[in-house]
């Protein structure tokens, strides 16, 4: 299936959000959103991923 992670379309076999992040090598202190809605870290293992899903994985960054 095709999913989008941080704006980049990619093939994935992930069944859950946690697996999709691992596939993409996204670790460390990040927060996630699926199709525009926040998904807490505690729910990543049980949040299913479907064809066409858009994932955002955000990290601490400089800000004003």
């Amino acid at each position, binding site marked *: 299936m095709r999913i989008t992670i*941080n*704006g980049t379309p990619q093939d994935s076999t992930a069944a859950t959000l946690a697996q999709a992040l691992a596939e993409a090598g*996204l670790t*460390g*202190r*990040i*927060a*996630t*959103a699926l199709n*525009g*809605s*926040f998904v*807490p*870290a505690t729910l990543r293992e049980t949040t299913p991923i479907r064809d066409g899903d858009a994932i*955002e*994985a*955000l*990290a*601490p*960054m*400089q*800000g*004003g």
Partner: protein
Amino acid sequence: MPVFYGTTIDSPLMLGTAGYPSPKILADAFARSGAGVATVSLRRESGGGQDFWALIQSLGVVLLPNTAGCHTAREAVTTAQMAREVFGTDWIKLEVIGNTDTLQPDVFGLVEAARILSAEGFKVFPYCTEDLVVCERLLDAGCQVLMPWGAPIGSGLGLNNPHGLRALRAAFPDVALVVDAGIGLPSHAAAAMEMGFDAVLLNSAVARAGDPAAMAGAMAAAIRAGREACLADPMERTDMAIPSTPVIGRAFL
């Protein structure tokens, strides 16, 4: 010292973390500034996020994540929820941008997002205009801090509407007020503090100075002077001269 949602902060200077020439210069600027709060953001992870996290942990300041770049209440709410988890704080500098040229807040989306986030337990620091009625709506929505702009973000223009800012101070004597954005020089920051603002939030004025650490020190000194001047109860202004040297006893020559 400012009190935000019951927490006393050691300094009225709140400093942003963006746009410094290097991480070391950022750390030096924070050390010189004595800032008590650092603003931070969330962006797509591209490798630098974890190093930045380590850096800000070392600064010894309270973190205030922002929702910079959000143009709708929905985006801002989601970003705030993500920031709460990543930074481990329910403080959020709420930005809902309405105009891409001026980065002026969309005050309608701002009030909507502030209401949602306050209901979810966030302690909202809204980046707003100096509009009195908008500020009343933000307080109604649950905000206990207001952060009106001095001038557009990154412009360095100073306090564009000092009358409006003074009116806010007079209208809300018991609300924590912060001038956020537009500060370019220490004199701008001092002016805000002289008006009785509780704190000043700035970033570009320090980060884009030729010597950020030195400018951070200058800002800290100006803010301290402005605060002390406010507490000293400045004299009234008059349009005409009033002689300071006694008139009585003047020689008749």
